[in-house]
């Protein structure tokens, strides 16, 4: 393996990540705004983006904290949102599983929706690529995205305090989540799971914050899995 092919794989990954930055940076800024509005200080807000680096779960936790949820319920709901990444991890295994431990550990940190999607697209298009190129391609997809996620959070946290309060910003987060969910509704099973989630979450809304959502989530996963089992995918 020459360092030239490694470098070109790395640069290819970085190039292909560019469209995702268009979504990622405003999303990061919005997180900075929402988190500081919920009462986190600047260090906590940026710290969460560094340590967790998972947008949807960060928004979930902030939403629950702003409702004064139990801490364990906020933690459990945030982790539940990230459970999908176990699927990403399983799906990356055949491609990257043979890499050295330190590289797999770094992939674990950088394994987000966008890098996973870009990586799988590339690996399925060119399965013959050597392992080292696959790894460096993956790192390339995050070389801009990860720093910009953190920098965007910082900017949002700093600039957000200067924004007027009446911009209906309270509703930006629900809209972003719905924008994320829309493209995921590909089959009847997904639709059934989403509908169950809505109805169950509303029905369980009297339960302590976060626990209703967890129950609704488990129920909805079971509904999705059951529809899939009966119909085939």
């Amino acid at each position, binding site marked *: 393996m020459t360092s030239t092919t490694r470098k070109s794989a790395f640069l290819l990954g970085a190039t292909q990540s560019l469209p995702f930055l268009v979504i990622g940076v405003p999303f990061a800024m919005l997180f900075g705004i929402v988190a500081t509005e919920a009462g986190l200080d600047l260090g906590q807000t940026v710290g969460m983006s560094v*340590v967790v680096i998972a947008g949807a779960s960060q928004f979930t936790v902030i939403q629950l904290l702003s409702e004064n949820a139990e801490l364990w319920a906020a933690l459990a*709901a945030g982790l539940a949102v990230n459970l999908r990444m176990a699927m990403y991890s399983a799906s990356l*295994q055949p491609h990257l599983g043979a890499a050295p431990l330190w590289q797999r550990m770094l992939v*674990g940190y950088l394994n987000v929706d966008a890098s996973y999607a870009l990586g799988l697209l590339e690996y399925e298009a060119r399965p013959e690529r050597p392992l080292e190129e696959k790894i460096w391609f993956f790192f390339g997809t995050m070389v801009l995205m990860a720093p910009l996620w953190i920098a965007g959070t910082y900017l949002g946290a700093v600039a957000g305090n200067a924004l007027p309060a009446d911009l209906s910003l309270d509703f930006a987060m629900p809209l972003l989540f719905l924008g994320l969910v829309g493209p*995921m509704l590909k089959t009847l099973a997904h639709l059934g799971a989403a509908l169950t989630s809505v109805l169950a979450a509303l029905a369980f*809304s009297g339960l302590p914050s976060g626990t209703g959502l967890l129950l609704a989530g488990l*129920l909805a996963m079971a509904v*999705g899995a059951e529809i899939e089992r009966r119909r085939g995918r």
Partner: protein
Amino acid sequence: MTYTNGEIWGLIALLGLGTYLIRFSFLGLIGDRKLPDWVLRHLRYTPVAVLPGLVAPLVLWPEATGGALDPARLLAALATLGVAWWRGNLLWGVAAGVTVLVAVEQLV
């Protein structure tokens, strides 16, 4: 929000650790072995099982209106979901939702 500084940092640390272990899990520890199909089948629906339930009360009972149903927000939410589904794209959906939200708020 009524948490101490330490509670927030503890939450951030545990969320970060747990998220890391989820992401690293199979890649790091399981090797070539495969999860049972029924587990994978459930995991596939995790995002669509959690996110809609998170959003539903915020859409139907918004805090900004004191929990009263707001036609502008409801229509904006439906527009976002519908267009994001139709175009297969987050940004198109959010653009549609924001447009509807602003338009209806102006009209009403």
